[in-house]
């Protein structure tokens, strides 16, 4: 007590600071949506739910139209989204946004989903529709480079040439979905055994294999590496936000792999009808445009990207997703073979 008496002023000041900060912090995170009667819990990844992502704008529009507020719950990636669902979090989400083609088999087998009927949606070609999963954006994948660097390749095979030594930043398929897309791409285009042979020969061209897309992209941005495997739409961020037109995607003559993001409604949803409304709401042209512009992905319905930067001048050849759906069935074996390459 003697100690407390002597130090009473610092303790009081400390308490006061913590109290004031708590009040400011609580006020800033409590949005008015909490006072509304109907709230939809949406589990998604941070890039979607952040202020600069499409989430807040979509939530605002959804509330204005349906009177239902959105409460975002975040998980870092598709894997963690499924893990959170497995954990039966006390805030059971009504909608899950951010599953992708790679996590779909796990989501189909491991969880039960509320059915949703989607009629009269004018889907763009090539998007695999797999109800009850609702695609809401997509993008082909390729290598990105800066225009001043060098002439880009036209075939995957060219990447093993001497001029590409130490030039590629890839992601590890064990830890990154983009890495898995790259593996699927190579194996789909070349076949399984030939694909692994090619990867072995590609070794001198690989400068780094990062555990995450963000790490490798950051290295590319810092001119540590001339080519990075990323989304076809990645350069558009630099074009639109930074007015930097040096970033370009590589158009391969081989068909490109592509990523599709899906939303779904868990079977034990509380606001199931509002959840259905929300997923259908995402597919409206005006909302698809918001997703396109803020998430830098392509819309899944026709006529949204027309006349915008997202309408690429060249036709992009895409691989048939059925080829890598088959590959994904023995994902573990593929990963073991990848590890055995010791790239």
């Amino acid at each position, binding site marked *: 007590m003697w100690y407390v008496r002597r130090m009473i002023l610092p303790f009081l000041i400390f308490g006061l*600071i913590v109290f004031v*900060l708590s009040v400011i912090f609580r006020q800033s995170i409590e949005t008015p949506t909490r006072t509304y009667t109907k709230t939809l819990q949406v589990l998604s990844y*941070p890039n979607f739910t952040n202020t600069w992502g499409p989430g807040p704008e979509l939530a605002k529009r959804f509330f204005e139209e349906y009177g239902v507020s959105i409460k975002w719950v975040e998980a870092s990636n598709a894997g963690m989204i499924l893990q959170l669902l497995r954990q039966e979090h006390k805030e059971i989400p009504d909608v899950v946004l951010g599953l992708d083609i790679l996590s779909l088999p796990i989501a189909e087998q491991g969880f039960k989903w509320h059915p949703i009927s989607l009629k009269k949606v004018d889907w763009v070609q090539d998007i695999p529709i797999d109800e009850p999963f609702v695609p809401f954006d997509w993008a082909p994948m390729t290598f990105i480079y800066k225009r001043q660097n060098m002439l880009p390749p036209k075939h995957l095979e060219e990447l093993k040439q001497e001029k590409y030594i130490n030039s590629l930043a890839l992601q590890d398929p064990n830890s990154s979905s983009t890495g898995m897309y790259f593996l699927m791409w190579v194996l789909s285009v070349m076949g399984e055994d030939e694909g692994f042979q090619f990867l072995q020969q590609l070794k001198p061209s690989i400068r780094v294999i990062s555990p995450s897309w963000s790490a490798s992209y950051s290295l590319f941005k*810092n001119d540590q590496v001339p080519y990075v495997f990323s989304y076809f739409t990645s350069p558009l961020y630099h074009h639109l936000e930074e007015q930097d037109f040096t970033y370009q995607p590589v158009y391969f003559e081989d068909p490109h792999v592509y990523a599709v993001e899906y939303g779904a409604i868990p079977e034990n949803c509380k606001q199931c009808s509002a959840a259905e409304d929300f997923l259908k709401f995402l597919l409206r042209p005006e909302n698809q445009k918001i997703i396109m512009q803020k998430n830098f992905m392509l819309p899944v319905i026709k006529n949204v990207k027309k006349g915008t930067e997202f309408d690429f001048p060249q036709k992009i050849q895409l691989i048939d997703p059925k080829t890598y759906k088959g590959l994904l069935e023995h994902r573990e074996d593929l990963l073991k073979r990848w590890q055995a390459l010791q790239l």
Partner: protein
Amino acid sequence: MRRFFLALLFILFWVPSLTLFRFWQGPSISIEQILILYKIPILQALISAALTLFFGFYVAQGFIFLRQRVSTRRLAFFEYIAMVPSFLPSLFVIISVLSLFSQFPFGLIGVVILHVITMTGFASLMILRTLDTRLGFHGAIAQQLGATPAFFLKKMFPLIFRDLLLLFFILFAYFFTSISIPVIIGGSAMTSGEKLIYDQIFHQQNWSHAVDYFVWQTLLLVPIFIFTQKYPSSDFTQEEPLRLGGSRIFSVGIFLPAGLIFLGLLGRLPQGLHALFSSQEFLADARTIISGSLLLGFICGGLTILWLTLMTFISLQPTSRRWLRYLYISSATFFAFSFYTWKLSGVNSLLLSALVLSLLFSPVLFRLGIYQSVVRLQSQWEMALCLGSHQGFLFSRVIVPQVAHHIAILGGLSAVWGISDFAIARLLLRQDWTLSLWMETLVQQYRWDMALVCSWLLIVLGCVVFLFFWRVADVSRQKFM
């Protein structure tokens, strides 16, 4: 009372990790596999520790040179500069080094280089302390007798060997459990033991394997931790600054790592400032992330002060002190993940993050800043008890006044580390409520320049919180004098 506090600390440190064993599906990794998997992490940690110690020794020579030419105040400032890379967020160091070197090596070599850059300053100060306590007195005599520095150090090396060995093992454990640098620079290679656990939890979602790795890591690190409890091995207090020797060339090593980082960041500052001030998102989120960071920092610092005070009280009795060495978290990722399963949300998750971070930092800070003082006060404590003093009275009137200053400073340090953490907070908060989390999201969204400016802002916030605790330390010193 002491047993109660000891039990409380044990529950806080060990029970959360043990709760994750419910996901364990039996041992699935053989010893052969572990040997293969741990080959690179052990190699990485061994090389990093050896090189850090090697360069640290020479930088310590630089300090010896400077202390003969500059004032004590200026020398203290140089010490802070040398410590800068160790106390900055790792992401900050990585970004700046990569900005400077366009062909920075990745994998094992890159991890080792960055580890050496970040920890050489810290190691040099630890070595300097060892040289002062062990050789300072002899150095003064040797100087009088005209011994050359090389001859003196060669002859006296056996006196400091044990301390250097212990420091080597401390560094080894630190590098083996390092996470941020191996995750970004290590590429797909598993360059640290912690990364193996991190990978299983975050990417593979195989929690049973994560438990396996945790067990193996604990088995490896606990003996090292118990062994290094004896650091510094000298309990005597005859500390005299060693003035023999010193090197002008090696004094450059004091400023080199901090200078590299500063240069790397400065280059991108104008673009970053422009991006930040034209960002509507920053203006919209500024109140949340700044208040969130400060709140996390203050609570983390406050809780650290509480844990350090409890540890000081417990450690005054030698039997309890022996138990205290088992308060060790062998895997920060695993420990934090056990709290993730508590499923707290909202402000409570921020408080939980502060609790977890304070628990992670406290054992290290206790070893670094309090342990020696406690050992020094042991005789006073025992003598007063023999004379019939009451423990509570003794603790508050004799012990606390002598350690309160250190505890407050260490609380400030913990607050700064807490503010700059993004790995643990990411797991527990789920939303970008602190500046470091906001910064990490910026990096993920290509906004590299803005992320760099946020790093500067992060340092400003860290300084604000640290200054508060510094002031508390000052006040406590004045009050108890």
